[in-house]
């Protein structure tokens, strides 16, 4: 009898709290988005699963002694996992298109307006009762506009760990939604003629340029923004391993096995922050709303900047490529290519969009550094 009672008291049914049930449904929802809708499945699947695990009553996944607790504190609280992901992404990134046409960096810069405008917006939300974002919170939320998962997780873990779950979910969800969010904005801000513009073919970039490039980026960052060097440094390390040609086995491991292992743990660790009390509040709604705004403003700023540059450029610039400046590599560049083809079936913008696309990664890492330096 006693045993039966102990057993009953140790069931989930006897211990459920409403918030946990809702958060498990949120986790299932993320799994649905990842599997059925293909929303950034590599991250959203482990995040969704982690959300379910962390909300299981009695089991204590995220308490001292629980496996998610160890994963979170060893890998996310220290910043190691997002930095390793960034190293792997660096090892996967080809900067050739950007080096061939460096002015595209301005598009990557413009698109970061999505971040800073959102920062302003997050502070403005404080006027509504129920919201109480500090400047740190606002900065961590704003980085969603950078459209870069590891950057968002890294910054949130430093500035607003209690918002980390919502921020990471918003960042990856909107990145998956880029093909839906961006096209209307791109079409509203351009006319048919502009969208048909063909761009000059990119010059060949030689090996030496590609090798020195990550070092140049790192040195500039050291000079002007050391706060960004964890992110930029690991990214440049990955890229240098890729391009130098003498450590291919390290580069291959960084962009395959290592990033896969870390992705599983990062996702679970982020999911462990999706507890009811951290997620089920009006602030999460604010974060989701602000994230959508951030992406939209970033896209618009990129396109407008491209139009402006087109006015002063001797070589024609298709303003659509500005939308790729938000990063969300390589999805945003593919969207640009697709919208471009709709207006001009012979105009392949993919390579031209890769420049602003990777510029956007650098741009948001720099923006993250600025926020760390001024707010952190």
């Amino acid at each position, binding site marked *: 009898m006693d045993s039966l009672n102990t057993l009953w008291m140790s069931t989930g049914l006897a211990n459920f709290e409403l918030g946990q049930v809702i958060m498990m449904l949120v986790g299932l929802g993320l799994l649905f988005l990842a599997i059925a809708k293909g929303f950034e499945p590599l991250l959203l699947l482990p995040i969704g699963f982690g959300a379910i695990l962390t909300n299981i009553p009695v089991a204590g996944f995220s308490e001292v002694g629980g496996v998610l607790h160890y994963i979170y504190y060893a890998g996310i609280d220290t910043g190691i996992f997002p930095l390793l992901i960034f190293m792997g992404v660096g090892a996967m990134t080809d900067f050739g298109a950007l080096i061939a046409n460096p002015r595209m960096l301005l598009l990557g810069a413009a698109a970061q307006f999505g971040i800073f405008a959102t920062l302003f917006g997050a502070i403005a939300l404080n006027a509504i009762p129920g919201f109480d974002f500090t400047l740190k919170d*606002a900065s961590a939320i704003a980085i969603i506009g950078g459209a870069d998962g590891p950057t968002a997780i890294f910054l949130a873990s430093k500035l607003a760990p209690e918002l980390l779950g919502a921020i990471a979910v918003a960042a990856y969800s909107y990145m998956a939604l880029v093909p839906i969010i961006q096209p209307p904005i791109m079409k509203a801000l351009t006319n048919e003629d502009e969208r048909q513009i063909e761009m000059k073919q990119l010059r060949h970039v030689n090996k030496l340029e590609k090798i020195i490039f990550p070092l140049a980026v790192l040195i500039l960052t050291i000079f002007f*923004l050391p706060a960004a060097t964890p992110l930029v440094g690991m990214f440049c390390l990955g890229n240098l391993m890729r391009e130098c040609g*003498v450590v291919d086995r390290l580069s291959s491991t960084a962009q395959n096995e290592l990033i896969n292992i870390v992705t599983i743990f990062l996702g679970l660790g982020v999911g462990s922050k999706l507890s009811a009390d951290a997620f089920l509040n009006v602030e999460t709604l604010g974060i989701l709303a602000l994230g959508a705004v951030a992406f939209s403003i970033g896209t618009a700023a990129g396109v407008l900047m491209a139009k402006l540059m087109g006015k002063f450029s001797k070589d024609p610039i298709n303003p659509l490529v500005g939308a790729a400046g938000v990063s969300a590599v390589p999805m945003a560049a593919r969207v640009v290519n697709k919208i471009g083809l709709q207006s001009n079936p012979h105009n392949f913008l993919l390579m031209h969009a890769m420049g602003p696309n990777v510029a956007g990664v650098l*741009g948001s890492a720099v923006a993250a550094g600025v*926020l760390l330096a001024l707010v952190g």
Partner: protein
Amino acid sequence: MEELSSVFMEAGVLMAVGMAFVFGFLSLLIIAINLLASFSSRYPDPVPSVKQPQQTASSNTGEISPNIIAAISSAVAHYRQKNSKA
């Protein structure tokens, strides 16, 4: 209310300083890339000379693993066998 406006002000300054910094930084990078391009143009791709040192070094980077070789050998053998029947 006063406090809110001061945070607003701070956010506004952050926005201005941040965007200025991002533009400034990436503009510098444009200059750096252009300098890099003119410097690098003097060293056209020396593919073989870059690869050579590695071979003398004690790394086995880039070597194809025996497993894969074995896999391919068997695949090719299999294919050849199949082909010779046909």
